[in-house]
Structures are given as structure tokens and as C-alpha cells.
């Protein structure tokens, strides 16, 4: 296979969630001395973006999305140490969790995969993360961004509770807050005082990058 064949096959096999084949192709690509970044940015990420687009259009449902995500995560596992070695700079640290009372985590996990792929260091606190736990983890890991995910009408109000906990701990201004999940809208994000919202994984990556950029270039008053 030529490098071009590999990229094409990697894209196609990720799209259909063929995890073992994706891993094989990743190996083959590396065997041909292809750059890990090339495999990632020219095949794996575009493929998962296409998966997201098909999901939006209703051509894919959750299981297709999950197996594609899993295939990409498998390849990431293999590429992660190599990416670190090649000295690709991490864009920033992203702390993520599903809010207290909610155990929906598929959307969050997908965001995590894309963030990692794009060069973020991701710390995942899992599901049902209470406000105190977010606060403690922010103090411990000093992330650039903290992300709250919620999928239920009844758990969305935890965003506000989390914000209050950050305020109370005096760390609100130290971290960028992003929120997301199926019921969340830009208006809702604004209402709870979050810094950013995104409707899907690839937009989360874009938004996260621009928020970090904005924060780093901001001259302190």
C-alpha cells in the first residue's frame, strides 16, 4: 500500500468503525515512516468529523458513532506516545466531566477523543461529577479549560451550581468554562455565565482553541 492508500483506507475503516483494521493500518502507516500527525490529521480526524456530520444529518445513529469513536480511540492509543515524542506542543489542558445526577457520557467521550486528537491534554473526571469534585480537580490539575456536559433537563441546572462553586472557591477567573450536551444552547450557556458553548465535538475543538488563544493574548488590565 502507498501512503495515500493507507490514508484512504484509514478514513474508510474509521468511518465504519472497524477498530482492528484501523489499528493495522496505523501500524502499516508507521511502518512506511508516515508521520503520526499525518495519520491523525489527514485520515482519522476528518473521518470522525464525517461521522459527526452523518449523525447530524440522521444517516448515522448512536451505535455507528460509538464504534467509529472507538476505532479512532484505539489508533490514538498507539499514536499518543509518538505524538508526544515528536514534540508536538499540547494546545492546552482540558478538564472534562458529566455533571452530578447525569450518567450520559457518549457525547462527552466523543468530545474528549477529538480534543486529544487535536492536541489537547484531556483529564476526564467521568460521570456524576459533583461541584466540589470539579473544584478540587481544577485546583489539582490547573487546566486551561473545564467542560461540563449534561443531557437531561433536570441536570442542566448543575452548570449554575458548578459556576457558583467555582466562584465560592475563588477560582472562577482562573479557568475557562465550556458547557455542552444535547439540551444545551448558546443562550443557556450565556445565562449560566459560561465562557463557551459548542454543539458538537469538532466545534468544541475550534471554540476551545480560540478561547485559549484569546485568554493568552489578553493583556492584563
Amino acid at each position, binding site marked *: 500500500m502507498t501512503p495515500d492508500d493507507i490514508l484512504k483506507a484509514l478514513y474508510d475503516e474509521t468511518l465504519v468503525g472497524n477498530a482492528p483494521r484501523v489499528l493495522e493500518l496505523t501500524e502499516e502507516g508507521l511502518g512506511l515512516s508516515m508521520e503520526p500527525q499525518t495519520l491523525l490529521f489527514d485520515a482519522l480526524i476528518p473521518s470522525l468529523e464525517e461521522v459527526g456530520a452523518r449523525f447530524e444529518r*440522521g444517516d448515522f445513529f448512536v*451505535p455507528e458513532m460509538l464504534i467509529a469513536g*472507538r476505532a479512532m480511540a484505539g489508533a490514538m492509543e498507539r499514536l499518543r506516545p509518538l505524538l508526544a515524542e515528536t514534540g508536538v506542543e499540547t494546545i492546552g489542558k482540558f478538564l472534562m466531566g458529566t455533571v452530578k445526577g447525569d*450518567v450520559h457520557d457518549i457525547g462527552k467521550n466523543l468530545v474528549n477523543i477529538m480534543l486529544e486528537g487535536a492536541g489537547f491534554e484531556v483529564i476526564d473526571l467521568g460521570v456524576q461529577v459533583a461541584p466540589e469534585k470539579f473544584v478540587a480537580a481544577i485546583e489539582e490539575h490547573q487546566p486551561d479549560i473545564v467542560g461540563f456536559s449534561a443531557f437531561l433537563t*433536570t441536570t442542566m441546572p448543575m452548570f449554575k451550581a458548578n459556576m457558583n462553586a467555582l466562584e465560592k472557591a475563588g477560582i472562577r477567573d482562573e479557568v475557562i468554562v465550556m458547557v455542552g450536551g*444535547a439540551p444545551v444552547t448558546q443562550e443557556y450557556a450565556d445565562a449560566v455565565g459560561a465562557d463557551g458553548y459548542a454543539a458538537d465535538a469538532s466545534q468544541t475543538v475550534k471554540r476551545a482553541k480560540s478561547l485559549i488563544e484569546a485568554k493568552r493574548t489578553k493583556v492584563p488590565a
Partner: protein
Amino acid sequence: MALIACGAIAQPAAAVVDRNGWPVDVHPLPPLLHNHPDRIADQVRALAERLGRSYGRVVVGYADCGTYGALDSVCDDLGLQRLPGLHCYDVYAGRSRLERFFDEQPGTYLLTDFLVRSFDRTVVRELGLDRYPELRDTYFGHYTRVVWLAQEPDEELRALAADAAEGLGLPLTVVETGDHGLEQALADLVRPAV
């Protein structure tokens, strides 16, 4: 009068209507819309507009059902009333009881008679568990129990519910709600016209 009903409650709703002798025709929409709630509001709008031409009054047998307010906008637009609450679980069991279940165990997965009876189609196949059984833990790894809100638990349904919970690897709690909640909610919807 026409009642647009989510396919997941159309049958029990029709039974309640019959029992009370209400002059109401039940018009179901596909139950699988539940997994694509972004399509519910548009479909309800289209059906309501069509039915509005032949019925004096149209009411909506949906709760918010994951439309996150989109259905309310349609109802406001067309002057329709819908079932109260967030989903049919609220209607069957009451909001406060559900809150208690979720407070006790956030990892509670709810079933109704409809979901028990159609489990293979509405849950197993929709979530792809037939094709990818290994995804079970990806979906349900954080869940701790199944609570079946039972309307009419007969032997057959009990066996199916037990199978469903076992398939998910979770213990089953049966809570007999009957259909009083649904009857009350429907009565509130149809009352002004009866």
C-alpha cells in the same frame, strides 16, 4: 377531537379514552421518534395542521420528550395543549417520585410497559446492541438498576422485563403505577371540550 399521541403511549391512551367514553380519536406518531427528539416538534406540527382541518380541537399526547422546548413552541404557535412534564415517565409515576428514584440512584434506567414489550426493537436494536453486544457497558456501565414503571404487569410482561434487565446486567425493581397518572393527564387535556 383528535389526540396526537407518541407511539409509546398511544395504546394505553386509546384504552383510557375508550374506558371514559371520550369523543377522541387517537392519532399515533412513530414511537422511535423518541430516539430522534429533534424531529418530534416538526412531525407534531405537520400532523396537527393536517388534523386541524377535520377536527374541532387537537391536543398533544407528548410531554417535552427531549425536544427541550421545541414542542412547546409548536404548541404556543398553534394554540395546542400537551401532556405535562418532561417525559412519559413523569406522566405515569409523577415528577416527585421520579426525583426520588434518581436521588436514590442516579444510574436508574426506566422502563414502561411499552418499552418492556418492544425492548428488542426500541432499545436493543436502536442502540445497536444486537450488532455490537460489547457496547452494552459503554451504554450502561454507569447504571445500577432498572426501574420498570408498570402499567399492567401480567406474567408475560414480568418475564420480558426480567429478561430485559438481565440483558443489561442490572437488577430490576418493579413499581406498579397503573395508568391513573396517564388517565388524569389526559382528562386534563380533553376536559374543556367534553
